[in-house]
């Protein structure tokens, strides 16, 4: 938590200091109030006092109350500014940090966890800062001041107040001890309820096909029961809070008065009146003491939750970035080449290599295809080119220069990457196709239309409402999988890159569209180099070079015809898709 507070700006700290001064002022006023109250009481009780006296005292009291209100309003304003600007800064920093992450860090934290860290966790801290600025500062000042006012006045009454505080603290800490761990359990159970319901919804066809509705309802009900049980326990425990708080407050006043009656009865006549007014003042200060300890208790209840959030945020902010930027941005001798030199790769915390000793070179205009069974390392291999991950051993060269030497921006300007799972952003067809920055001007409408046409997306785009300006919903939910994939390909084309990377990007297309698309693409981008990962033999059989991967090793390299003769794995893959005659005739 302390580390996070370093994110306060100078202006924030200035506002905090002003707040502290104002809060001290406010506490002084608040503690002054009972004095005026008791003198008004005394005036009313005394027979010969005049209305003017009461009006004067009443005026002072209102002045105090008004002053307290005013400073509370100003403090409230400052606190809301500080809290909001603090959370603004935090969110900005987290977002910028996540943007600088490589895929490894994203994988480490998981996307959904990063989202909650940027939003919910920051909100938690924001609440603590907003409340804390007012309570955290006010409560101790109030407690100390109020205690000092009553301390030494009377030992019995002080002892009574002390007992009240003790009872409160014991109750609060016992409750926290019992209930707090169950709060996290409730959170987990809510996640579980969500999880089971999500399963019910996503698997609805399977569940119905298996007539498993009852089975699923039982699973849901199990979590539901457990959630209800835990919640009931928690809330029943917490229901004690209010009555105990009230009891302590009431009994403190009653006790002070009761003890006071005996003391007054025993005292001499001079002391009687003094004791009486002390008693009235003491009972209101006693309340203030109790209230301030309650405020402290509230902060202690909020603190652990905020602390957890602070830890999660710090983990993100302090995470090392595995991908360090290079410096090269200038033009290169070679253009459109990709070379792997003895590249090996494993995840940092893994024992086994995913890729072992891979070497090949793609020249300008070449099409290099990668094929292999699930888990053979094809995707991992091409993810090394845009530096989503860095090689463990060896080097990857683009245009003759190690990818680590480029600034990431310069490297990415050369690349048009189409991922396995097409990503769409909220916006329009055009904004999605023209997405990003390639160091040159944004693509023109003409360019966008060309790219869409080459990607075989023209028909459906022009059938959409608004055509190129048609709305794309969050996550691209209003276009089908195949359509998304074609738009993602159009995005790469509109970028005009030297090197295309297709990571199994044709899988959602039917054979015909796949074939036409690749033919058109070849025509449109004669000079560009393509790296293609695919499952289908048909997609890659015309590549200049096919690299066959098996468990991270290259087991074959060559053209389709060559591999059919030399590479057993390739032959097996091919034969699983087409017959022997077809292979020979093709």
């Amino acid at each position: 938590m302390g580390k996070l507070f370093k994110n306060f700006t100078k202006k924030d700290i200035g506002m905090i200091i002003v707040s502290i001064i104002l809060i001290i002022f406010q506490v002084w006023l608040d503690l002054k109030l009972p004095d005026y109250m008791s003198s008004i009481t005394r005036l009313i009780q005394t027979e010969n006092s005049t209305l003017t006296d009461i009006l004067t005292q009443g005026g002072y009291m209102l002045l105090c109350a008004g002053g307290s209100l005013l400073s509370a309003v100003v403090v409230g304003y400052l606190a809301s500014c500080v809290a909001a600007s603090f959370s603004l800064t935090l969110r900005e920093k987290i977002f910028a940090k996540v943007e600088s992450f490589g895929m490894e860090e994203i994988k480490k934290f998981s996307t959904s966890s990063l989202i909650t860290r940027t939003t919910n966790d920051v909100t938690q801290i924001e609440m603590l800062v907003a409340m804390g600025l007012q309570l955290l500062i006010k409560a101790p000042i109030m407690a100390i001041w109020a205690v000092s006012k009553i301390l030494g006045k009377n030992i019995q009454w002080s002892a009574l107040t002390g007992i009240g505080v003790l009872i409160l603290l014991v109750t609060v800490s016992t409750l926290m001890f019992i209930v707090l761990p169950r709060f996290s359990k409730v959170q987990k159970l809510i996640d579980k309820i969500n999880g089971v319901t999500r399963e019910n919804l996503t698997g609805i066809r399977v569940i119905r096909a298996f007539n498993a509705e009852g089975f699923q309802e039982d699973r849901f009900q199990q979590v539901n029961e457990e959630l209800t049980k835990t919640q009931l326990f928690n809330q029943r425990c917490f229901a004690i809070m209010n009555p105990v708080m009230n009891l302590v407050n009431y009994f403190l006043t009653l006790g002070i008065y009761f003890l006071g009656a005996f003391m007054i009865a025993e005292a001499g006549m001079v002391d009687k009146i003094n004791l009486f007014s002390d008693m009235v003042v003491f009972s209101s200060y006693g309340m203030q003491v109790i209230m301030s300890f309650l405020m402290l208790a509230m902060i202690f209840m909020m603190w652990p939750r905020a602390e957890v959030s602070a830890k999660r945020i710090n983990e993100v902010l302090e995470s090392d970035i595995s991908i360090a930027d290079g410096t090269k941005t200038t033009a290169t001798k070679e253009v459109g080449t990709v070379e792997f030199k003895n590249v090996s790769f494993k995840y940092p915390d893994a024992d086994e290599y995913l890729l072992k000793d891979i070497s090949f070179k793609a020249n300008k205009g070449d099409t290099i295809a990668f094929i292999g069974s699930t888990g053979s390392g094809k995707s991992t291999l091409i993810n090394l080119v845009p530096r989503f991950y860095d090689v463990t051993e060896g080097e990857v060269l683009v245009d003759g220069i190690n990818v680590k030497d480029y600034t990431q921006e310069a490297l990415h300007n050369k690349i048009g990457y189409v991922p396995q799972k097409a990503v769409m952003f909220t916006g329009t067809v055009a904004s999605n196709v023209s997405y990003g920055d390639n160091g040159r001007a944004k693509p023109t409408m003409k360019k966008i239309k060309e790219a869409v046409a080459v990607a075989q997306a023209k028909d459906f785009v022009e059938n959409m409402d608004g055509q190129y300006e048609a709305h794309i919903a969050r996550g691209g939910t209003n276009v089908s999988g195949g359509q998304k994939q074609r738009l993602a390909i159009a995005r790469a084309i509109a970028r005009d890159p030297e090197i295309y990377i297709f990571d199994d990007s044709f899988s959602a297309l039917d054979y015909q569209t796949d074939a036409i698309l690749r033919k058109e693409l070849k025509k449109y981008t004669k000079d560009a180099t393509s790296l293609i990962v695919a499952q289908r033999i048909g997609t890659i059989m015309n590549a200049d070079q096919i690299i066959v991967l098996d468990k991270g090793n290259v087991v074959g390299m060559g053209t389709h015809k060559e591999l059919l003769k030399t590479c057993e794995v390739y032959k097996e893959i091919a034969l699983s898709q087409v017959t022997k005659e077809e292979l020979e005739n093709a």
Partner: protein
Amino acid sequence: MPRPGGRTYEKSKDFKGSIKRLLAHLKPWHVLMSFALVLAIASSILALVAPDKLSDLTDTISAGLQPNVSEEHIAEVLQDPTIPTEDQQQAMQILSSIDEDSNTDEILAALDQLPSSIYDEVKPTMDMDKVKNIALLLAILYVLSALFSYVQHYSMTTVSNQFARKLRRSISTKINRLPLKYFDNHETGDVLSRVTNDVDTIAQNLNNSLATLVSSITLFLGSILMMFITNWIMAITAIVASLLGFTLIGVILNKSQKYFIRRQKELGDMNGYIEEIYSGHNVVKAYNGSKEAEAEFAKLNQQLYESNQKSAFLSGLMPPIMSFVGNLGYVAVCIVGALLAMNNIISFGVIVAFMVYVRLFTNPLSQMAQAMTNLQSTAAASERVFEFLDETEMTDQKECTKHLDKSKVKGEIEFKHVKFGYDPHKMIIKDFNATAKPGQKIAIVGPTGAGKTTLVNLLMKFYEINDGDILIDGVSTKQLTRENIHDLFIMVLQDTWLFSGSVRENIKFNKDDVSDNQIWQALRTVGVDHFVQTLPGGLDAILSDNDGISQGQKQLLTIARGMIEDAPFLILDEATSNVDTRTEELVQKAMDKLTEGRTSFIIAHRLSTIKNADLILVMQKGNIIEQGTHEELMKQQGFYEKLYNSQFEKTA
């Protein structure tokens, strides 16, 4: 404990109707709720009575402050023969030192020096028995009030949680009764938020607001009543002074509401944006979109800052204003009270009582305002829940009078002029006719959007056909219950649906009598037995979202789940699309064994998998355009042949 962020500040469409309906749904708990509410009222009444007693106590104590020094009493004492004369003389001396100019303290100090015999006569006497009695009464009142309050909270907690459990269960059951069509138009997240957020809002507010509202109203009305009974001038003073403050609060509450709604919306927008950018991280990076993203994020962040700051500021104003209103009322009551007391219209005790009534009167007003806001959001949330529970369910199955016995089915399926569209104005399947003979392997191929999966949905009666008929062994599926039809089919889908649970639970699913042997057998058939053995715990290994099991392996597990079942028909809807072709071939061989003797329907992207089908139906735009075996279709040199050969088309 308040749950930050989870609160919705929505306005309901029909507040009264929703609350009425909510209350009707709460019927099983009406007795317990009434009990709780009676306790809330009782507890509030005790709170109203207690200050009255406390001011009695104050009066009794202050009555014990004044010495009995009236001239008659002094004269009486000084002449009392039972008191020694020297004491009387000493007293005379002391008293004579007091003159007109002496202040109270000097007088009292002088009195304290009186000889004890006389001092005992003039010293103030406090009615200690009365003090003890009042204190005891107060203690009982306080304890009772606390007890009532606890029992009331306890009961309401019970009601709200049991009600939440019932609502969640109703929603969960409802999901299974809705036609699939519903889920085509509604997002998963929407239903999810009804199960959690909305139910939570209802339960939370039910727990707090209802009892608070009732006890606040009691306190409010009670304190007004008590005030008017005591003194009407003072009552009006107190009310006017407080109302001044409350108009201010009303204005603020109204204003802050707007910012809360805005804040909620902006938080949602930001969440959506972050989700989009984080989950598309690879594309954002590769396309150098970070700067663009940061600029857009900064804009959203700034917007959120403003509504955050304003809503926090405005909502933070409430407590200080409340305490100011309290003080204002206090001073007003004191001044007016003093004025009245000086004119001997009221006694001092009345003023003391009013000081307490003012506090009792101002507190519940703000609580009522808060409770009303909460009830508003409860109404909005329950509207959303009820809306879901009111959705039209699947057609009832009274007309389904026939039943087909799984073990006696021959296995013939006939489609007769089937017409269907998800949207009744837009037919997807236009006039579909086909017959599958017992034991045949039927493949359905065609480009994306041709209606292949739709056909399966109709066969499984997930959707009702618009026209025509589907017959199983000559019996119209319209006369069969959905459960009966589902029972006749084994179905494996493209989406690899597994739930979080062990491998064993996932394979067994809803069947009880499956031995581990059978499970291993199925796993072996699809070739994942080795993989499962390497998992920690084997069959007991827990499957969850982020367990690093590939899509292909998950798909194989779902196929194994299908294999456990025994039914006369088999549907494979792109069941091997995530598996690489070599593995697919292995699975295919196992499948062929599985499909022996069963009528099976296979939908596939990869044409190689279905070449050995007995009948290939080529679909385009909802119609069959070609049908026959692979060889026949290739000879026709039509659409199928083109589709098939496009796999090998040269790109250069």
